[in-house]
């Protein structure tokens, strides 16, 4: 754990995803965490980013 990226958080979530929620796409999890990390002081913005990530995935299916 020695970095400026939330890679540990992503890794933790991916571990759970693989075991308990394999139907959740891997890339969505990483994208949501990065969006939250980059908008940590901007709560309104982060929700919009997360929504965009999910909608983009649903549209692409």
């Amino acid at each position, binding site marked *: *754990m020695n970095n400026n990226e*939330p890679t540990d958080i992503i890794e933790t979530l991916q571990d*759970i995803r693989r075991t308990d929620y394999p139907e*959740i796409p891997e890339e969505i999890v990483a994208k949501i965490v990065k969006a*939250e990390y980059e908008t940590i002081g901007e709560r309104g913005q982060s929700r919009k980013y997360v929504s965009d990530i999910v909608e983009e995935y649903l549209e692409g299916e």
Partner: protein
Amino acid sequence: MFRIIEIQLQNFGPYKGSQSIVLPRDPGVTIIYGENMRGKTSLLNAIRYALFGTILSRGSRNVAPKEIVNWESQEEGNYSFSVTLVFESGDSNYELTRQYRPKKSVDEPRTEDDYTEEVFLKKDGSIMGPDDQTQQISRVLPEQVSRFFLFDGELLQQYEELLIEESDMGRQIREAIERILGVPILKNGRADLVKLLEDAESQVSKAAQNSQLTSELGTQLETTQEQKRHLEKDLNKLIKDKETLEDDKIGIKAELDKIEATRSKIKEIEILEEQVEEIDSKIYTKNEELKDLMGHAWHVVLMDKINERRSILEQQEADIQDQRIEKSVAKKLAERFSEAISDETCPICRQEIDSEHKSHLDSEIDNINGMIKSDGGEFSNNLRYVTRAIEGLRSMEQSNPKMRISDKIFEIDTLKAEKATKEDRIREVKADIDTSEESRAARLIRENESTIGKISVKKEAIQEQREKVRIVKENIENLREQLNKVSGDELEDEKERSQLYQDLVRLFDKGVEKYRDELRDHVEQDASDIFVQLTTEPEYHELEINDNYGLSIVHESGDKITIRSSGAEHVVALALMGALQNNAPLKGPIIMDSPFGRLDEGHVRNIIETLPNLTENIVLLLHENELDIEDARNILKGKLKKEYSLQRVTARHTKLIAGGVTDV
């Protein structure tokens, strides 16, 4: 990595005029030496002020900025100050300036309202807009986690609170720890997903209402969702209210701690006043005794005469005693003479006594009897008189009041001196306290009790509200299942979206818990490793973490060390700092003010050796008693990158000098 490059000061605290510190870009340690009251804490505050606009005094109390303007500058008519922080974060360079100056319409500012504060941030040479700059600063170093980068011994002491379950201060620190470790990334993600799930469910219920088949269930679902939203809103308000009350409680406790000193001073005065009363009573008693002694003081004048008279009487007594013995011997002799006359034989030589000798003996007997009879009892009377007189005189001599009077006066003087010392102390303590604080303490104690009561009420209400939310959630789940059965292939898009959000919420829920557990394991391991390097006690084996991130020392026997010295507390806190730096996504400098005050030489050496491994950018604000400059150079060697010293010009003016104390 957030790295401070330069701190520029203008009339900030003791730093009169324009002064600056340039920190090395290479990883390593900078030491700034200064005696007490030269401005070490002001440097820490300058950084804090530039970043967050706050200035802290002892006890983490906020100081009004107008108190920071350099005194000499104020006397010269300059009431402004500013701090500029030059730093880099990520790939960008920043220059943050915060200045505090009187409003243009004010010539001589008196209150905070007469001042204005301006902040501007340059990023890679371009000035940022006000909203962007606030966000940027909070991203570079959020104020809530600044305690892990800018700290002093006092702040380190607070980490003991983490070992106390249900401690309000502990809760605040735990939240700050989780913030630096990145937990809010997950918590914010979960909060966003919960809100988006609500929207997605709302879309499902709305879509369901459009179909005849599912219309009723859709309406029920929407109503129940609305109910859930209200309940959750109330629940969140209750939680927030409880946290506000807990924060208030911390504030009240801090205020009580602050006036605790005054309360103990008032207690000291009460004790001293009682002691003065006791001394007064003793002085009164001694004065009465002295008066009594003074009643016999005339004895002193007669003492020589008494002495002389006693000697005469003693001589008389001796003479009378001699005469008594003489008469007793004579009487005995007369009796022997009578026996000899009667036996007509000498009792010594056993020869016959003739008539001539008999006649001579008769004559001697007559003489002796005459002498004995001539006394007529006067002898015994004289002796009794003389003996009594001697006894009386002796008793007068023994009760000689001269010595006792001077002893008594000495005792009274001693008591008076003791009283004066205590009265001086009372004056001193009284001058040092604000008497209005006693009533304030009583008010705070009442407020504290009332706040504790309110917290307890809120806790119960939260529990009840949670139960209500749980029941509504169950209802929603049932309705959703029914809707799924009834709707068949309809509402597919809405249901897919809702399902995805639901799974994501659950994933983030589990993620928060798992990440916390992992963090605790990592922090425990790293803190243990650092602690073993820092401690001088070889039997201390490791640290054990609790749910609050509080760390206990574990002895090699496996027992936890329950009572820790303040030095051990300090070392554990530093180990925690190091572990947090290791595990946080956010990396920054460590700037420590007088961090070694409570530590012995061995611990200081261990810490100095270990510090460069904790982070790249370390600034130590030290006084020479904490760490000798030669020792620092020997221990750090090439890792010591720069030295500054704080040189006194006047009590209100300090100069920052590049170079260690011995170089100045």
